[in-house]
Structures are given as C-alpha cells and as structure tokens.
C-alpha cells in the first residue's frame, strides 16, 4: 500500500513529469535533419539549467564550510560554461542558416 501513498502524495509531480516528457517529444517531432545539429546544441544549452542547482548549493552552504564553497564555486563555473557556451555556439550555427 506504500506505493499508493507515494502516488497520492506525489500525484501532481507525476502528472508534471509525464506531461513534460510528452512536451519534449512533441516539440522535436518532424524536425528536418538539417536542423539536428543546432537543435542538439540548443538542447545542450537548456540542460545548463542545472546551474540553478549549483547556485542553490552555494546559497545553502554554511559559510564556514570552505570545501563546500569551493565545490559550489566550481559547479557554478561549469554550469555557466554549459549555458553561455551552449547558447553562443548555437547562435553561431543558426546565424549561418539565416542569410540566404
């Protein structure tokens, strides 16, 4: 019965996940091959949202915990690289498609 309790408690989250999966599939459906590379690169930039977690780690770490702060600091750098690098390189690729 525990499984039912889990479902009841997390019902909204479960609905959210299932709908998000379908949105992901729907959004990509029918994309021409030509756009696969930029699309992959764009999706790559979007998962850089993991940086939000790294910032939360920084905010919630005890200021006396130097090791924790260092790891958080590194995580924010890596996340930023993913976000900024990802969006910029995607923009460069798509710039090429624009001019006719």
């Amino acid at each position, binding site marked *: 019965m525990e499984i039912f309790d889990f479902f009841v408690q997390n019902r909204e989250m479960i609905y959210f996940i299932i709908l998000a999966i379908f949105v992901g599939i729907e959004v990509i459906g029918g994309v021409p091959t*030509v756009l696969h590379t930029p699309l992959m690169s764009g999706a790559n930039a979007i998962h850089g949202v*993991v940086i939000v977690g790294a910032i939360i780690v920084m*905010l919630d770490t005890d200021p006396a915990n130097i090791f924790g702060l260092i790891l958080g600091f590194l995580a924010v750098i890596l996340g930023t690289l993913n*976000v900024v690098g990802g*969006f910029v390189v995607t923009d460069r*690729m798509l710039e090429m498609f624009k001019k006719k």
Partner: protein
Amino acid sequence: MKGLLEICYLIGSVTFIIGLKMMGNAKTARKGNLIGAFGMTIAILGTIFLFRTEDTTVNTLKFVLIFGAIGIGSAIGWLTAKKVEMTKMPELVSMFNGMGGACAALIGLTEYEHNRGNIAELSFIVAGMVIGTISFSGSIIAYLKLSGKMDKPVRLPNYNSLNNIVLLLVVIASVYVVLQSLVLPVFVIWLLFVVAIIYGILFTVPIGGADMPVVISLLNSFTGLAAAFGGFLYDNKPMLTGGILVGSAGTLLTLAMCKAMNRPLSNVIFGAFGGGSGAAAGESTEKGTVKDIQVSDLAVLLNYSKKVVIVPGYGLAVAQAQHVIHELEKLLEERGVEVKYAIHPVAGRMPGHMNVLLAESNVEYEKLVEMEDINPEFPQTDVVLVVGANDVVNPAAKTDPSSPIYGMPILDVENAKNIIINKRSMNAGYAGIDNLLFYNTKTSMFFGDAKKALTELVSEIKQL
C-alpha cells in the same frame, strides 16, 4: 519575494519549451535560441537574488564567489564558442555537455552529506550525481575522439560484458549508498563518483568516431536527466522542465540520428564499427585499378559539362575548402553549367553539419539538395565531384552485407556519367573501410589537398 521567484521560474520553464519548439524550424530557430537564453538568465538571476530557505546564509563573500564563478564561466564559454572554427563545433558541443554533467555531479557530491538518512532525497542526489558523472567522462572521451586526439576505438577483451559488469556495480553501489547512508562513511560517495567516471570512459571508448554524434546526443539527454534529478531534489520547476524536456527530446533526437544512418541504437552502442570480420572481408575482394586525372583534363571536363553535382564531405571542411568550392560553383554557373550540392544526412561529423559549413561560405541554401531528392538526378549528371567524402558514397553499404556500414543509405554517385574523387591519398575513410567506388571504371582520382587542388582547378578553368 517567493512569489516573484516563482514567476521567474514560470517564465524560465515556458521559454525553454517555446525556445526549443522554435528551434525546430529554420526560420524561427535563431530567435528560439535567444528566447531560451533569456529565460535562462531570468531563472539564474531570480535564484541568486530571491531564492531563500531556512538554510540560506547570504554574505558578501558568497555573492563575490557566485558572480566571480559566473564571470569566469561566461568569459571562457563565450570566447571558446566565438573563436572555434565551424569544423570543430561538434567536439565543442560535447565539451559543454560534459561541463553540465560535471556541474550535476558536483551538486550531488556536496548534497550527499547533509541528506544522509533521508532515502527520497538521497535517491535523487545519487541518481543525479551518477548520471551527471557518466555524461561528464563520456563527453570528454567523445571530445577527444572527435578532435582526433584519440582516433582508434579502444576495445578491451569482452568489453561488452565488462561494461555491463561495471554498470551493474554502479547500480548496486548506488542503491547501497542510498540505503546505508547512516552507517557508511561520507567518502563512499566519492568512491561511487570514481566508479561512475570509469563507467563513462568504458562506455564511450569502444565506439568508433563515426558514431560519436549519436553518442553525444545520447549523453546530452543523460545530462538533461541529471538536471531533472536536481529539479526533484530542490522541487525546482525550471530544472525539472529543462531537464525532462532535454531528456526526452534528446532521446528522440538520438533515435532520429540513428535512423538517418539506418543503424539501430543498440548497434551503435554494442556493435563493432570498422573492425573485426567486416573489414577483413572487405580487404580480400578484387579491387581492380585506380585511374587518376590531371587538373587540365578535369578543367575541360567540367567546363563542357551540362550538369555537375558536388558531394562535399568532412575532408572538404578540414582543408577549409568550402570557400574555394563556392568559387568553383559560381565560375561553372557563369559558364552555363548547372551545379548542385548533394548533402548526405550525416555528411561532416553530425547531421546538418555540412549545411552549416557551406552556408558559412555563402553557398545558397537552395543549392544544397538532400539525399532523397538528388539520388534520382544522378543518371542525368555528367560529372560528380566528390570532395573529401568517402563512407557516404561507398557502394559497400548496398552490396556487401559483411561491411560495417551495410544498410546505411548512400548517395548513388555511381549512376553518374563521370565520377571524380578528390582525396589526399588512398587512405580509408572515417569508418576505416575500403571504398570500391575508387576502382569503378567511371571513376578518376584527383589527388591533392582539397583547398590547393581546387584552387588550381579554378584557375585552370578561368584560362579556358
């Protein structure tokens, strides 16, 4: 304050969906990317200034560290993304993907200690950490392979069974670390981290370079999944939306790429590409002789043709010959020759990569013809000029069931009246297999570095 943060997060989540949707269409793609970047900025700034829980302590040092880290990351990310040559883009995407995976891994490593004893939270933490780590080390290997620093697939004996054993070990250790967190010392999470790194490496090293785009796309959806687990942990909606979106879209994209190469995903991951019996069988076949053609003869041939189709491959990009080829195309068009480009779906190193490279040198979008549309035109084509492409025109994909690329759709260049192949040498292509097209009676080899040879060809035609 909490309300404002939730609005920022709503904006972030919605822009990710809209942005990704717009990126699926050539006209709106660039705007879509910018919309995604805008939403990301809102979500990040909102978190820095508005995210507060009972654990949060805010002081100047933290703000300095956060903005310092964002500054460093932005500077490096921006500069590398702006400076990189278009040919090197695939490996850069892989590198950035690895950074995201490493970020997810570090989050898990720091959060483990504070959440010991709490099974639900720990499952998210450990799952995010392990998946992020695999994506990290796998992406670094993919980067090394694509950039040519590690060009041979490395296969340990029984590598498939070995990999599955290590994977099983990772899964069991993860479950154990979650369930026994109160008894185990904190450093076990670091041991798990090391094992996950090893698995990421073992997973990627046996896969050949030609299949790397598929692997990158797969690892891309892994990082999405790792971000989504972070979203569960913090009950953070943009992380959940962004992560799940990329996870599911990335998986679909991976399958679409496999379909373009006509190879099932399991074949890419577990199958041997460019090795074993297939290559050996190819070697023993009767080859015949190779003819070559001089630049002056080729100039005449092209000048008096009605229709020329250019098949560009990665070799063209490596030689930076995309500008010269455009010059050749313009020159021939002036002389009344119809010129088109035949673009194989996986020409270059990734689907669509060749389009980007040629668009960079101002080749008109309409001149780039996709495989299904150009194949029926080859019988009416006088000359096919293959520049730096190999596997995508290899007839073994249709005729030789023992060939590693058997079943991959190819450009039917052998139906054309004349086939000219520009190559630096007789070396095998990226997949490491021989090409019987070179020995076709209609084929002439035009040896030389693509840029140098084509420049000579252009000046030769000009003199006619």
